[in-house]
């Protein structure tokens, strides 16, 4: 059995499930109460769970995350929503210097089971301060786990997994996906953090993509199939820790790999995936250089045509993939 649901609804359902099952779970953030969340993710949650467990905060990202850290240290299971992932910039100290390191710094005396949800990505015309994809920052922080759900099921399953994890987990959702509908199972499975997913099977080329670029890569794979190119799309889902084995196995099989991210190219997450592949034992199996297809190295512009040009679209993936297969 399955049903249809938007990504936003899936996030909401997962939060509701968790709050129902575990009284330690609660949610804090800006406008998550009666407003229903800036993207409508929370909707009526505050009515269902009350303002004690769905807490509207002041506009104080550093303070909110810090309170999440404190509550988590005391055994609660807070979910903190950062309205746009761009505003994690305000909270980096609490995310990185506190949440991520506390367990280590105190020699294991305490954990910080904190879940931070923050939507990233461009495509809404919100320009440079509301459209970034900042996963590379978080992926570089020892002590954090980082997930990037690319569809409704994962949005729920990864969130449930994050809430079961004794470590701080940052969930980078995607603004454009919120309104998109997906087939979902009747009951959401709890994912395993660190386990990737093979989205399509293929033999000519591996595409590793994250977040909305997974959707675009699957679209591209369909088009490429018509051109006789068989693509295996891998979604790591958790970008820290990374399911390296799944990627290497696929690359070993196909011999070619295209890495697709929305974030600006230079210093982005896919550089790590590229380095991981070329450093590994599959280096010898590579029939072509590892190639990245990424956002342009610009702040996200307001103009819709420029904005579209700034990040990989389906046709860009098709072209990059085809040229990789055809040239090598």
């Amino acid at each position, binding site marked *: 059995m399955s049903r249809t649901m938007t990504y936003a609804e899936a996030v909401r359902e997962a939060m509701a499930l968790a709050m129902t099952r575990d009284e330690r779970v609660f949610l804090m953030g800006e406008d998550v109460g009666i407003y229903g969340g*800036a993207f409508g993710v929370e909707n009526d949650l505050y009515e269902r769970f009350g303002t004690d467990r769905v807490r509207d905060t002041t506009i104080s990202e550093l303070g909110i995350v810090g309170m999440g850290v404190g509550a988590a240290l005391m055994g609660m299971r807070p979910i903190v929503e950062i309205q746009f992932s761009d505003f994690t910039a305000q909270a980096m100290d609490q995310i990185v210097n506190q949440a991520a390191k506390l367990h280590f710094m105190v020699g294991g005396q305490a954990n910080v089971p904190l879940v931070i949800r923050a939507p990233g990505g461009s495509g809404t*015309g919100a320009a440079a301060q*509301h459209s970034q994809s900042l996963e590379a920052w978080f992926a570089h922080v020892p002590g954090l786990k980082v997930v990037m759900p690319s569809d409704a099921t994962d949005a729920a399953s990864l969130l449930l997994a994050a809430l079961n994890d004794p470590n701080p987990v940052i969930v980078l959702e995607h603004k454009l996906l919120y309104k998109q509908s997906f087939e979902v199972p009747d009951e959401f499975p709890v994912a395993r953090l660190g386990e990737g997913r093979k989205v399509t099977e293929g033999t000519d080329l591996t595409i590793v993509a994250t977040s909305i670029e997974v959707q675009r890569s699957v679209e591209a794979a369909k088009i490429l199939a018509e051109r006789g190119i068989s693509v295996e799309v891998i979604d790591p889902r958790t970008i820290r820790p990374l399911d390296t084995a799944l990627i290497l196995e696929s690359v070993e099989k196909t011999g070619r790999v295209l890495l697709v991210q929305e974030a600006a190219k230079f210093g982005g997450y896919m550089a790590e995936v590229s380095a991981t592949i070329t450093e590994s034992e599959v280096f010898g199996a590579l029939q072509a250089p590892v190639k990245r297809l990424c956002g342009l190295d610009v702040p996200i512009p307001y103009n819709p045509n420029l904005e579209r040009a700034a990040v990989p679209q389906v046709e860009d993936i098709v072209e990059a993939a085809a040229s990789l297969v055809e040239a090598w």
Partner: protein
Amino acid sequence: MAVTSKELATDALRQMWQIRLFEEAVEDLYGRGMMHGTMHLSIGEEAVPVGALRHFREGDALTSTHRGHGHCIAGGADLGRMMAELLAKDNGYCRGRGGSMHIADVATGNLGANGIVGGGVPIAAGAALSQKMRGTDNVTICFHGDGSVGEGAWHEALTLASMWDLPVVFLCENNQYGMSMPASKAFKVEHISEKATAYGIPGETVDGNDLEAVAEVVGRAVERARRGEGPTLVEALTYRWRGHSKSDKNLYRTKAEIAEWRDRDPIARYAHDLLEDEVLTQEELDAIQAAARQDIRDAVVFGTKGAEPTVEEMLAGVYAPTPEEVQA
């Protein structure tokens, strides 16, 4: 109402009408799918920027917010280039890269709108530092919302500006809400201006829908700053008639409340007072409104005719060229 000259009154009323009609035009363009992104309208708040900037001089600076059309227009920006920017055109103030949330007119001292709540507050203090270090009697006006008072950035800027007696007026546009968080709930003080005492600076609350009152109170603060006596926190009480942005369902406030504030329309009220005090006649009032309407029509025409920006120029616009690059 304090007595005012016919010339000042005419200018002020025309600017308020320009703001109102500019935003109504924007709303209309958006509704017709000709404008994208999001928008934050300041309809109902026009008296604050127009009153506050009466004292603005060459060399003064201002910082603005996500709700910044009024600041920009009152600061003297060109309406056509503003509209072009919102229409994402190359002849817009930001060449279509910034949009409403980043609109700026640096030539007139407007250092820019800001998509980050509280983001402009330390920048304003820094502009004032520059004015002070250069030995000028210039000042910076820092527009910010009530919501930004919850940000650490706000606190740090007030701390530093008060320590150094910087010539800055922190002008809090208290329109009663952040996105949905009531200021009265967020801050356990009756007036946000009371927070000034924590920084050892004067604080004053003014009716933000009374243009002449705003001009007077901000005028005092500006004079104090010009004399080198340091910052002031001015709180202007006002109200936004529209929702926070397009995603707002207005669940957090009542229709009655909105209606009550519409009755205190700063434009109607000013016009009424001017008529009553015989500063302007009804025909003159009508002519001002008509002129403003024509200004906006011209702006829309100018904007609509703008060219589309190019990817190449966007790529070249990330970094300012170094002196050597300029030479080459």
